[in-house]
């Protein structure tokens, strides 16, 4: 019956056969550029964020290479300042923040809801183009002199230094709106477009993570927007709001910045956690232990994210009372994080563990996030932080969370959903090799940074004392192993695209809703609106057919 239904694709009005998969429906570059299909928009985001990841990665390798030897290795101090700023700004604003929600989330969120699309498909496309415009601003500032303020743009340095601070902050301002619109879209979609039977307690944990992330994107990002707007006006016209000489206050900038950027840290890590929850369920073939607690812990992180920003400013001259309050509140973050880690571990217990590459990334996430999270307690402890502030300990801490956590989760999710997105399988053996290099390279690069940080090596310095030489050399060699791992990973993906065998609808045998569709999915995701009768991890209720072949309609087509 579904075969003779044609769909009017809203917005550009030509008829599409809904039984074609989304890659075949509509040909040519234009059909991609004006598409309203969340899956295609997700793929366009994916290409964009991977490009940004490559650029940010090149800057990271340059920074590490410069630190290989004492003194000048390949660049001078001013170029070095630009390199680490661009590494940070690109990775944060162009890669990590949109990586999971906008790229992977766009693709799988409506499918997990049994919906045909997100709530506002046009807004979704608009948000992609806003991202592109923001990225162009960021690229322009790289070409036109670069930025040397660090990704945090602290005043008064950022209002006085040379370079393209205004175009970079405007770029981040614009990227912020892309992030807000994605969050808004997801929030509304999850409220209004759930399939029949998909009540909140049946929502996949990935979506609970997206829900918490969206709340933070919608409520925190506008504060960054106004802050950067003030910074741009301050720098252009000398408004004075952050300038003591004109009655302003530079510390206010830090408050405003971290009021956004601490939630932003959770905007980055919660999606990683969200993916990992899916991976653990699929590859242990059982329900996540403490499903509801894990779901609520995402919301808990979103809430706590808004009340701990002052722990970035223990040495910035805020009041003693404020530092104590923020330090105490920061300890609370350990609770939802612990809920997640313990429940994931409990899920592994007596699970039927299948060590695929996505699962290896999830396991690495578990270990590395625990290290990153526990060292976060060191940094949140007031007296200890006075010693650790602005050292490599901080650098190692947040790389363990951002890279060891979010990026590992992203890569795990990318490989996990790759067969769904592209309809092709990848070379599992080669992928495991690349995982090995990424895992070893990452830990070699950053574990040693805890040591040199605790011994007093300050971050963002171009040069260092001789006693730090061996640590820096070790770390730099680690970054090469990491780079090699990513090269192999890139080859795995390219090879899969070129000659990967076609994927069955549900190659992992997952009970997740999104796998109950064809690979790649048809334009409307499902031949009929699915009625949900079980939870996403109810392996005991899922039929053999659901686990291995998708819905009967899909099989009938083959």
């Amino acid at each position, binding site marked *: 019956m579904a075969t003779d239904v044609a769909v*009017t694709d809203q917005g550009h009005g030509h008829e599409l056969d809904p039984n074609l998969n989304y890659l075949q429906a509509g040909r040519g570059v234009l059909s991609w550029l004006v598409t309203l299909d969340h899956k295609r928009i997700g793929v366009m985001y994916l290409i964009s964020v991977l490009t940004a990841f490559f650029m940010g990665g090149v800057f990271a390798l340059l920074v590490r290479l410069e630190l290989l030897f004492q003194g000048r290795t390949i660049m001078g101090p001013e170029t070095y300042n630009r390199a680490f700023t661009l590494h940070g700004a690109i990775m944060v604003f162009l890669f990590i923040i949109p990586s999971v929600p906008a790229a992977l989330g766009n693709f799988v969120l409506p499918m997990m809801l049994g919906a045909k699309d997100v709530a506002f498909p046009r807004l979704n496309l608009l948000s992609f183009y806003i991202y592109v415009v923001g990225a162009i601003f960021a690229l322009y500032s790289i070409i036109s002199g670069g930025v040397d303020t660090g990704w945090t743009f602290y005043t008064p340095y950022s209002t006085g230094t040379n370079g393209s601070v205004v175009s970079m902050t405007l770029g981040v301002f614009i990227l912020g709106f892309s992030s807000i619109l994605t969050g808004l879209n997801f929030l509304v979609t999850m409220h209004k477009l759930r399939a029949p039977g998909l009540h909140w307690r049946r929502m996949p944990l990935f979506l609970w993570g997206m829900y918490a992330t969206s709340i933070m994107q919608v409520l925190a990002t506008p504060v960054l927007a106004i802050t950067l707007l003030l910074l741009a006006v301050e720098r252009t016209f000398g408004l004075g709001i952050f300038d003591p000489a004109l009655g302003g206050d530079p510390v206010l900038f830090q408050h405003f910045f971290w009021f956004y950027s601490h939630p932003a840290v959770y905007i980055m890590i919660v999606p990683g956690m969200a993916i990992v929850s899916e991976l653990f369920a699929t590859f242990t073939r059982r329900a996540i232990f403490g499903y509801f607690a894990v779901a609520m812990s995402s919301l808990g992180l979103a809430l706590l994210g808004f009340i701990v920003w002052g722990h970035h400013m223990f040495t910035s001259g805020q009041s003693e009372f404020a530092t104590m309050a923020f330090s105490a509140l920061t300890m609370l973050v350990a609770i939802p994080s612990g809920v997640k880690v313990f429940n994931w571990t409990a899920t592994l217990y007596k699970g039927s563990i299948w060590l695929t590459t996505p699962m290896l990334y999830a396991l690495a996430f578990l270990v590395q996030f625990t290290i990153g999270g526990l060292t976060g307690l060191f940094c949140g402890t007031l007296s200890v932080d006075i010693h650790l502030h602005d050292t490599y300990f901080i650098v190692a801490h947040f790389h363990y969370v951002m890279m060891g956590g979010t990026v590992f989760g992203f890569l795990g999710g990318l490989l996990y959903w790759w067969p769904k997105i592209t309809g092709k399988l990848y070379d599992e053996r080669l992928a495991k090799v690349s995982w090995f290099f990424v895992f070893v390279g990452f830990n070699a690069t950053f574990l040693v940074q805890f040591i040199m940080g605790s011994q007093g090596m300050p971050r963002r310095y171009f040069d260092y004392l001789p006693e730090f030489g061996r640590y820096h050399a070790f770390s730099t060699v680690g970054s090469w192993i990491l780079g090699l791992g990513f090269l192999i990973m890139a080859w795995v993906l390219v090879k899969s695209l070129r000659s990967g065998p076609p994927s069955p609808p549900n190659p992992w045998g997952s009970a997740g809703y999104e796998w109950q569709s064809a690979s790649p999915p048809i334009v409307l995701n499902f031949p009929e609106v699915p009625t949900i009768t079980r939870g996403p991890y109810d392996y005991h209720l899922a039929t053999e057919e659901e686990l291995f072949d998708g819905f009967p309609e899909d099989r009938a087509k083959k």
Partner: protein
Amino acid sequence: MSAGHGAEAGHGHGEHPPYLAHHFDTPEQQFDTAKLGMWVFICTEILMFGGLFVAYGIFRSLEPDVFTMAHHHLDRIMGAVNTVVLLFSSLTAALAVREAQLGNQKKTSLYLVITIACAAIFLVVKYFEYTHKFHDGLLPGRCFGHPWFAGSPDGHGGFSGSSTPWYMHILQGDGCFDRTMARPLQVLDLPARGNMFFGLYFMMTGLHGVHVVVGMAILTWVLWRNQKGHFSPEYFTAVEIGALYWHLVDLVWIYLFPLLYLVG
């Protein structure tokens, strides 16, 4: 279950009216979705203005006297007129929604036109206020209180500046960027730190002004669609959403007016 039948959407099939997008099951779902989307966006907007309100609170608590002195340079009459104009426009926006619900196309258009006209009046009044502040030398920043500003004949006088308008100085790059040039406006009886008040004044009202312009654009689009006959008692989502946004613009001003014009 209405599966995959956005299908009939384009063909005016009985069950699926043309305005129903393919990914919704019912018009009610589509309407609720749009409305929730606008409410979430309003939350974003409030947080964005929130940053400025926090800055206002901090600086006012630090220097209450300066704020009191500085606010005397704002024109309460003009501010009050604008408040009334915006409140009235919110009423007409709400009436436009009501008429759209009842299916009165002409009355809907009438109320939308009145709303847009009120927005225009607001901006005109704001233009005169801004011009006046510039002439008084109250443009915040490095040139705050610079004698250039008084060059125009209807300034409050006191500075025997040239007749070249202040913005020509800035365009010509005459450079008042030397901080020592910023001096107290003795004639206006205002300390140099009054800069902060006017910095906030221009940022807050400026950002609000941008929202007024955007609101006008949205309402004009709604008006255009109404003229085209897109709306009916069953489908008036855009009118509702546009009016909702306009109420936000109004609401922000309700806070800005007392905070800036009625300090002490």
